[in-house]
Every structure is written in C-alpha cells, then in structure tokens.
C-alpha cells in the first residue's frame, strides 16, 4: 500500500514461475485430481487463507506503523474468538429477535458476536499498547529505537495472554454452535456454510480497511504516521494517538478473524500460536509490510496448504506454509508485492 513503485527483477519472476509450474504439474498428476476435488480445495483454501490474510494484515499494519513485529498477534486472534463466543453465550436465546426475523435469527446473533469481537479487541489492543508497550519507549526515540525490547515484550505478552485465557476459559476446546444453516455441497464434500461466510466477511473487512486508509482523513493520517513520525508531527498529527489507533485496528481485525473461524473449528486457548506462524508466512509471501500483499499472501498460503495436503500428502499439513515461505524467500526475498520506493534524483 505504501509502496507503489515497483522494481521487479525478471529473473526472479521466471524462476518463480518455473517452481509454480512444477508444483501444478505435481498436483495434476495426483490420482485424486478432478474438478470436484479442485472445487472443494479452492473453497477450503480461500476460506483458511483469508483468515491467515486477516492476521497477516494486522501484523503488516503494526509493522508499517510502529516499526516492530508483533509476536503476540496470534493471542489477539484467540482472545477475539473467546470474546465472540462469550457474547454468543451471554446472548443465549433471544426470543424477540426470533419472532421478528425467524429466518435470519442465527445470522443476526452471529453478526452481533463479530461486532463484539471487533470492538472489544480494538479497545483491548489500545489498552495493551498504552499500558505494556508504550512505557518501553520512555527513553526517547519512540518505537523505532525501542524495537528489540518491544519484540521480546511481544513474546512475553503472548505467554501471559495465553495463560490469562487459560485461567478464564480453561484449556478445553469449546464449540461455537452458531446456527448458520445447513452445510452445502461443494465438489462432492459437505462443507459448513461458514467457509463461504469467512471469505465474504474477510474480504469485506479487507475492503473496508482499504477504504478507510485511502479515502478518509484518519486513514491519510495513519499512512503518514506509518511513513514518517517526524514529518507527521510537523503537519499537526497527534502521533502517539495515531499509533494507538493503528495497534487497535490491527487487533480488532485479528479479533474478527478469531470469531470467524470459531463456528467452523473450535475455540481453544492454543489456537493463536499456529495461526500467528502461518500468518507470518503469509505476510512474508505477500511482501512484509504491504497490506494487499498480506491478503494475497494469505490466499496463496491457504490454497497451497490445502492443495498440498489434498494432492501430495495430508500428514504434514502444517509444513507446507513454511515450505512456501522458504521458497519465496530464496527466490524473491521481497515477496510478491514487497518493493522499495526510490526518490527521483
């Protein structure tokens, strides 16, 4: 998003295309390959991918805005899922909604949960940033100078948040029984309707973020702060406030991601860790710090992972995301969209 001028190296792209072709040939040669299975692979891949993309979006946003990598981001995803689930349990049976909208009842409740996760995680993110991260920058120089301390603090924060969640919700995996209608048949498999819902909401959130950053005044300020704190100060932007806003938005998006996966999988205290790692791979594949790149990277990792476990071997599912990351780093270290802006002259 911040880098629009592209400096491509043709060699990188050619080698990468060769790898992609070899991979596609490998998948096509698999005995399971047919149109039906391809449909379900794409559905699952895209829906898982958008979740990686949403978390990667937050990581990239914090990276561009605060110049630090937030290693506790997976925990915001996990707590977001619990926030949605808690709201779901608190709401319970709302008969009056059921009487007014008997058909859309489950959806209305679920949207309220999504909204709760979004708002509560946004506020929680601002709280964490102000109380735990901001004091580390007291010695001056802001986040850029305090970088390594903040990164280590992120690891610690991750452990603390997991254990706090453990105390509150205990480690048993909890179902999220949102009533979203019957499963649908895609490519011979019966998939929960939430797969489609994940893609729709995820893309909606990404589009909303794009609109917010590019078309509103606050978004303009966020882009300015992400590029340079000093110059932003000089044009009259309240930089400390905007840093909190950036962190809050990143956490709110992660929270939505958590509530989105809740009904499809289960809500459990340890779900944040692996998502963080996969989202990291997604961010690197898309180009670290690039926001559209984060979503594209998420889709790439999701489809690659699902296709590989379908057509190559299902027993090493978690391996593929990192394999892809290593290949991308070897051939095209900037990722798909990672670029540099060069000033003229």
């Amino acid at each position: 998003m911040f880098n629009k001028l592209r400096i491509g190296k043709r060699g990188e792209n050619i080698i990468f295309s060769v790898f992609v072709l070899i991979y596609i040939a490998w998948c096509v040669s698999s005995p399971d390959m047919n149109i039906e299975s391809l449909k379900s692979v794409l559905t699952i891949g895209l829906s898982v991918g958008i979740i990686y993309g949403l978390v990667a979006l937050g990581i990239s946003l914090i990276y561009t805005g605060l110049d630090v990598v937030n290693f506790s981001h997976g925990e915001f995803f996990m707590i977001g899922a619990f926030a949605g689930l808690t709201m779901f349990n608190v709401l319970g049976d709302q008969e009056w909604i059921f009487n007014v909208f008997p058909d859309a009842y489950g959806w209305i409740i679920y949207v309220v949960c999504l909204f709760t996760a979004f708002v509560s995680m946004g506020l929680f993110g601002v709280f964490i940033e102000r109380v735990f991260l901001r004091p580390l920058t007291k010695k001056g120089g802001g986040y850029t100078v305090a970088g390594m301390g903040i990164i280590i603090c992120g690891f610690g924060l991750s452990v603390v948040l997991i254990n706090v969640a453990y105390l509150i919700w205990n480690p048993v995996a909890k179902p999220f029984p949102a009533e979203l209608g019957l499963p649908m048949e895609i490519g011979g498999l019966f998939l929960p309707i939430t797969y489609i819902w994940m893609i729709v909401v995820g893309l909606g959130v990404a589009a909303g973020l794009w609109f917010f950053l590019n078309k509103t005044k606050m978004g303009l300020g966020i882009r300015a702060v992400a590029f340079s704190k000093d110059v932003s100060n000089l044009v009259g932007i309240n930089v400390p406030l905007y840093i909190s806003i950036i962190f809050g938005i990143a956490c709110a998006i992660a929270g939505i991601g958590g509530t989105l996966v809740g009904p499809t999988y289960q809500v459990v205290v340890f779900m944040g860790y692996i998502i963080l790692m996969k989202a990291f791979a997604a961010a690197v594949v898309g180009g670290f710090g690039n926001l559209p790149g984060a979503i594209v990277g998420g889709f790439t990792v999701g489809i690659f992972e699902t296709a590989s476990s379908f057509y190559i071997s299902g027993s090493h599912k978690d391996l593929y995301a990192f394999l892809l990351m290593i290949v991308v780093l070897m051939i095209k270290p900037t990722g798909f969209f990672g670029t540099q802006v060069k000033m003229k002259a």
Partner: protein
Amino acid sequence: MLKIDQLVSGYGTVQILNGANMKVDNQSIVALLGGNGTGKSTILKATSGLIRAWKGSIEFDGEQIHNLPPHEIVGRGLVQVTQGKDVFPAMSVTENLRLGGFILKTKKQLNDNLEKVFNYFPRLNERKDQLAATLSGGELQMLCIGRGLMSNPKMIMLDEPSAALAPQIVLDIFKNINRIRKDGLTVLIVEQNVRMALLLADYGYVIKDGVINVEGDSKKLMYDESVKESYLGGTKVNVQ
C-alpha cells in the same frame, strides 16, 4: 511573534544549544545563518516541539509553547517547513497537501487553501495527481512549502529551502517566500546560501557554537567584515 529566550537543548545527552536568544517580529523575514553543526536546525526542532527545550523558554504569540507537543504547536499557527526530501513519496501531490491541512476542520477550508497553494505554485497544480516520488528537487521544495501553508499558519519556519537546487529555482522559491510574507505571514528562514537569505531578510542572526554570535539588520550584516570572514565562509559577499 516568536521569542526564544536562553534556549538550551540537544539530542540525548549531547548539548547543542547553549542559551540562544532570538526574536522574530510580526510580518518580517528573519534569517538564521551559520555553518554546519552550529545548531541552526536544533533551534527549529526545539521550536516546533520535535525535541524538548532543556532550559529557557520559547514564546509564540504571547504564549509559552516549549512544553507543548508538536501537533498543538502546529495548531497554534507555527509550522516548520522541512527540506524537500521530507515528503511522503508514495502519496500523490494532492494527498501530501491535504496532509498539510490535517488540522483544518472543514472541507471548504481545505479546498480554499489548496487553491491558495496552487496559486503560489502553479507547477504543483499541473502535477497534482503524480506521486511525490516523481517530482524534481525544486518541485519537492515547492510541495513542502505548500504543505506548510495548508494549515493557515501565522508563521512558517523554513529549513534550508535552497539546499541542492539550481540557482534559477532558488530565485523562484525566494520570490514566492517574499510573496508569502507580503500576504501577512511571518517567516524564519534557516539558510546556508547566505547572500540570498540576507537579500531577502529584514534581520539576520548568525549562530556559532549554539549561541547567537552576531545579529543585526540584514543590509548591515551583509557588509560586516567580521561576519563575512568568521562565519560566512570567508569570501566577499557580492551585492549587485
């Protein structure tokens, strides 16, 4: 307008300013001159709030501003214009200018000011949809000055507007600075191009080792032998 009194400041533990005194009158152009590393930019940074004043006071429009955060100083009408390289390269010219008017409340004010800036610098109007990264050095400097003007300031502080520019462009920019002053703004200009700055300014300060060493009317400073030899590079300043 601006009164700096016994200002002491620096970076980290390194003290750069050792009690500088300055005064800028309403609707005047004041030049702040000096060699490299003498504290010119530090005075600007302390005034716009990017670094704290350790001791002393800075008064703007009858109000103490040295304890305010930078964005509130901008809100009070004191804007620092950075060097041309400090633009947002991945944003268009219009977006850069809109950022300059970030503190404005209404859209109408913003559009009025955009018109005003395009009136000063027609070149920016021609290039308003280009990315700032594609502008030339002179256009970048115009963009920076324009961005400073967007927030309706009472006073602007320019940090070396002539740095690394061709003489013709420097002349153009200095003409515009004079026009800005005629329109009612106060200007503090930090320069290494001594001749141009003194021709433009009403009053000049020469800074050395963090204190104001010589000050006076700019016409007088231009012929002051001691100033010439000690701080202005030791060469004779030719006027006409």
